[in-house]
């Protein structure tokens, strides 16, 4: 069973982080990020050509992370691979010991660095979850054909509580759990009001008992970075008061960390939130400090948790 799954099933407030593979073949980049995150997070997401920019494959990078003693969460998007390639890579990843898969649709290629590319989108993230669950639990391929062998994998998905139509977001989460999601990592929370309201809806539907919800956070280094996210990154909602707070800060980096820590403190109080997912994009080194200051350190170590 995946370590992340064990941590969550023991009811321990989980911490996951994120590491993006390099835009080149240098695996030292991943080793360095893993060294910074090791011991601070229970598992680390390895992104799959995030923002549709070509990088080293998530699959290969996950294997490097494992070598470094970090448990990877392999992200898989449906933008670039059809159901044949996705099933094939899923089997390969499971065979090589990758035990967490995050199922995503993926950013559209027109927003990335190869806008001329065809997209695939043969299936969407919800269908991807369903397909992998079918392979794991019923030993069948998507076409219904029988498959041999055991698969031990913890399936996750993303969800954005901040995108429109807001009223549909909790219902969409229900679909993800119904399709096979066991854990959810949300879009970064800057607007606690919207998030709290979404969680209320989630609890009303009993969804917090269907799987584990990890709330996303992003530490920001400057008001400029925050404004960029507010204006340019689709699906992120940032209150103006937060932008002003960052603008006034004497030490913006320290303030960004402080905001992140305060957000985590608030998220810990919300019923149904099982952990946090810290996306310190190109700032992995700050994660241990955030984890410590949020009272989430030290992380459990394997011998302390008995596998159920």
């Amino acid at each position: 069973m995946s370590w992340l799954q064990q941590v969550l099933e023991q009811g321990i407030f989980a911490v996951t982080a994120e590491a993006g593979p390099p835009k080149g073949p240098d695996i030292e980049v991943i080793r360095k990020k893993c060294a910074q995150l090791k011991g601070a997070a229970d598992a680390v997401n390895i992104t799959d050509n995030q923002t549709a920019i070509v990088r080293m494959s998530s699959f290969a990078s996950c294997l490097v992370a494992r070598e470094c003693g970090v448990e990877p969460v392999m992200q898989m998007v449906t933008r670039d691979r059809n159901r044949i390639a996705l099933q094939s890579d899923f089997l390969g990843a499971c065979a090589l010991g990758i035990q967490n898969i995050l199922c995503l649709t993926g950013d559209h290629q027109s927003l990335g660095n190869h806008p001329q590319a065809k997209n695939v989108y043969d299936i969407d993230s919800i269908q991807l979850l369903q397909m992998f669950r079918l392979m794991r639990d019923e030993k069948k391929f998507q076409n219904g054909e029988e498959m041999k062998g055991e698969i031990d994998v913890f399936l996750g998905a993303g969800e954005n509580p901040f995108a429109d139509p807001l009223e549909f977001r909790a219902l969409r989460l229900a679909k993800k759990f119904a399709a096979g999601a066991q854990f959810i990592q949300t879009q970064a929370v800057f607007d606690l009001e919207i998030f709290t309201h979404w969680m209320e809806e989630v609890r009303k539907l009993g969804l917090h008992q269907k799987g584990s919800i990890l709330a996303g956070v992003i530490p920001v280094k400057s008001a400029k970075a925050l404004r960029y996210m507010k204006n340019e990154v689709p699906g992120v909602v940032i209150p103006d008061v937060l932008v002003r707070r960052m603008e006034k800060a004497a030490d913006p980096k320290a303030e960004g960390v402080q905001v992140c820590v305060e957000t985590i403190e608030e998220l810990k109080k919300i019923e149904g939130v099982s952990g946090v997912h810290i996306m310190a994009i190109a700032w992995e080194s700050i994660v241990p400090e955030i984890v410590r200051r949020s009272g989430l350190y030290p992380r459990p170590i394997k011998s302390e948790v008995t596998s159920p």
Partner: protein
Amino acid sequence: MIIGERKPVKEILQLIGDRKKILVLGCGTCVTVCLSGGEKEAKELASLLRIKKYQASDYTVERQCEPEFIRPLDYRLKEVEAVLSLACGVGVQALADRYPRTPVFPGLNTTFLGMPVEQGRWEERCGGCGQCIVHLFGGTCPVTRCAKSLLNGPCGGSKDGKCEVKPDRDCAWQLIYDRLKLQGRLDALLEIQPPKDWSPSRHGGHRKMIREDMLL
């Protein structure tokens, strides 16, 4: 023209469900020419529905895809529970936009952009990729007519001028080769065609066209 094929009656009945007052709406343009959704087909389907105890009426407009042609339907729509449109997917959506409270069901499957090649047989010709390069291939589009959309010659599955994916279909690359040979332009095929820019196609997202000089 846009080619459509009528859905099976069984499927149409499932779409309608327990609604009784149905308007079967034909379209007088593309789907009339390909004999799938014109006045004749609308009348036939409405009478079939009446045999099955529906209160079905029929009507046909010149083009369901243009607001000025569907506007006169306002009073007819007040009297029905649902519309069964025999237009292509564009017409169905134009109707659904104009009558947001009325369910509009597609009676056809919109299949492709194509032409009649003989009596009773239509074939696809254009995929609407947004960047026409058909001149490079002697007037035969491999993007649409080759199952793999190959731009640099036939795959290993071309046999006797037919496609391995659908053996009753011509291999687009056999046609391209023959045409360019006839024109003495085979050297045009030696150039390596670069990856196509798919951003003007549907892959780049929902498309629109604006004529600044025509805007009011």
